[in-house]
């Protein structure tokens, strides 16, 4: 469950990529060096840095 708190360019970009309210995402893994993370949203894989992903509010759901 998602809400994007970022501003400006990051915000628009995330919205276009499917980070909208109610979307489901799954954190797949972290990169070998610990930063960007791999997410699955709307059935595709995306990588985000901690910086950007920290702007996304999520609520854990099961299943």
């Amino acid at each position, binding site marked *: 469950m998602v809400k994007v708190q970022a501003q400006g360019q990051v915000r628009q970009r995330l919205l276009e990529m499917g980070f*909208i309210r109610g979307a489901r995402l799954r954190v797949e893994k972290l990169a070998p060096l610990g930063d960007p993370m791999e997410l699955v949203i709307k059935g595709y894989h995306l990588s985000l840095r901690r910086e950007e992903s920290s702007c996304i509010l999520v609520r854990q759901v099961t299943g």
Partner: protein
Amino acid sequence: MTLTIALAGNPNCGKTTLFNALTGARHHVGNWPGVTVERRSGTFEHGGSTMEVVDLPGTYSLSARSEDERVASQFLASPEVDLVLNVLDASNLERNLYLSTQLLELGKPVAFVLNMVDDAENRGVHIDVSALELLLGGPVIPTVGNREQGITELKELLGTMARGESNRCRRITVDYGHDIEGELAKLQTEICRDELLEAAMPPRWLALQLLENNAEAKRVVAESHASEAIRQQLAKSFAFLEPHLGADGATLVAERRYGFAHGLVKEVATAADDKRTPTARLDEVLTHRLLGVPIFVGVLALMYSLSFVLGKIPQDWIADGFKALSNFAAVRLPAGELTSLLVDGVIPGVSAVIVFVPVIMILMGCIAFLEDTGYMARAAFIMDRLMHVMGLHGKSFIPLIMGSGCNVPAIQAARTIESPQDRLITMLVTPLVSCSARLQVFIVIAGTFFTPFKAALAIIAMHFLGLGLAVLMGRVLRSALFSGPSSPFVMELPPYRLPTLKATLIHMWEKGSIFLTRAGTTIFAGATLIWFLSRYPGIANRQWTLEYQQQRQAVGTLKLPATESEERLKLLQLAHESRIVNTSLAARLGQKVEPILRPILDPDHKRAEAWKDVIALTAGFVAKEIVVSTMAVIHQASEEPKVGERLSPLQVALRDGSGLTPLTALAFMVFTLIYTPCLGTIAMIRREAGSWRWAAFTVGYGLMLGWGLAWATVTVGRAMGFA
């Protein structure tokens, strides 16, 4: 009559493969006017009508934030476009449809290609094409681009549309809901007060962009006489919508578009099955916490050996061919200025250009292959942490890798980076990455002064030094030139796909020919200029030529054994040529510049011929590969080793006659690595950065950094007891 078709779609949707399948070899690669985004266009014919297909840059949206998106949306809005062909990745339909909602809003007829249906089927996704047609309001053709399935049907469809025999396009609009639609209508009323604005783009489309807070749309509106009224209405709409629907305009618009896409997908496609895809299984290994980095290093190593071991074979053929041609010309033509121009200037110049093409093509082929398979995104994923710490973007790593092939396409590759700041920094530091032209210099110099093992170490060290400096300078430049956050790292990790041989070959050919056209002019001109500088005024001195001929005749009258006579003639020739070179314009230039470089190339001030290095380095401004060919000309020794010998005559001459020591040779390599980008790179930076200022800046900081590090190499080396 010609129909212009704009090919639009997300990145990684197989658009370019489809473009190649449609147009075959009949295409042209250029640039979009005013910007540096690649423009691919081609034609095909069907039933007597010609269709021009323009491949737009792959974008996720048309909100015009990056240069790619700006180009795409401007072209799509232009009257030139008769039909939009939207390529959809069937295995990732929902996100692909987001762009479709925007394309539908542009008001042009849109036809759809449902590409990679095989991938979708493998994931258990079955798509009802006729239902999709109905909901999208345009014809949909399922294809498998890389196996050219569905291409005939697609051509047939485009043909009927070109002849106006099809009216399968209906206007479908995304319904944004009662509240938003109300505000859109009010905004449209204000927009329509300005007829110019109304004509420029569909008012609904402009109104939507305004609601999204799009900077480009605001700029368009600011130029209108109705701008004040529109601004007021927009403020009112925001004031109404935000508290009412609990989010700002951009979120609301995106939500409704995704809502449309989501509903559509639910209607026409079955859900993907849960089994792990091959991509997920591959990624378990390729981006593994521990294995990811070593695999990446291995891929890089493989790329290098392919380029420089395999690429060496055709390279040798070409070099041998030109050598034979040059010898043939030297024997057949009478001695003189023109022959010298041909034998010492033109032929080596052309050879220096063409000899390079196989390596460029193989390396670019590898890079294209990695990009098309989807591994490049993983490389950026793996490297981003490191790059980010150094002030760069994970995507900057790709240009840096490419830079090791040739800086010129690498700087072009920086186009993929969205933020202008990140892009500029990447472009400014990429020239520090050792390219394969510099590799040629390193091979000659290191091979001369070091054992094969140490030479390999030195060359590898140069590559790491270049990469390290690029990364370091990235950090320095970011803090010196810009303040503010770096651009977001939102990057898709596309499914792994096996690209077709055709796609890779086309890419190789394009990169090879781009190199040839740029090299053909700059390197060739440089070689000719250097020939002129190093031969004049001596070559035109009739007295010297006369003396030389008399000496040759004198040897002939001695009636010596053939081998001895030949040897004497060779000595005479060398004496004659060195007399010309030692008094040439280049020599005078070198002697003037040499004191500046003395601390790094001649620290003991013992080398009488240090100016020869200066000439070679000066020539390197034109292109790094010319450093070697200039050395060959100036030292009057061939670059090609004799049969059974490890060192070429040039290397022997450098070792025995130049006075360089292993330490100063290393300093020479360091300086060559950094001192300046070649002319082609400088021209490319100017083009990509949009001003000579950045190009000049790159040269300036390179010269200073290069001198400083070469000096440090000599100073530290001597302090440690090396010579």
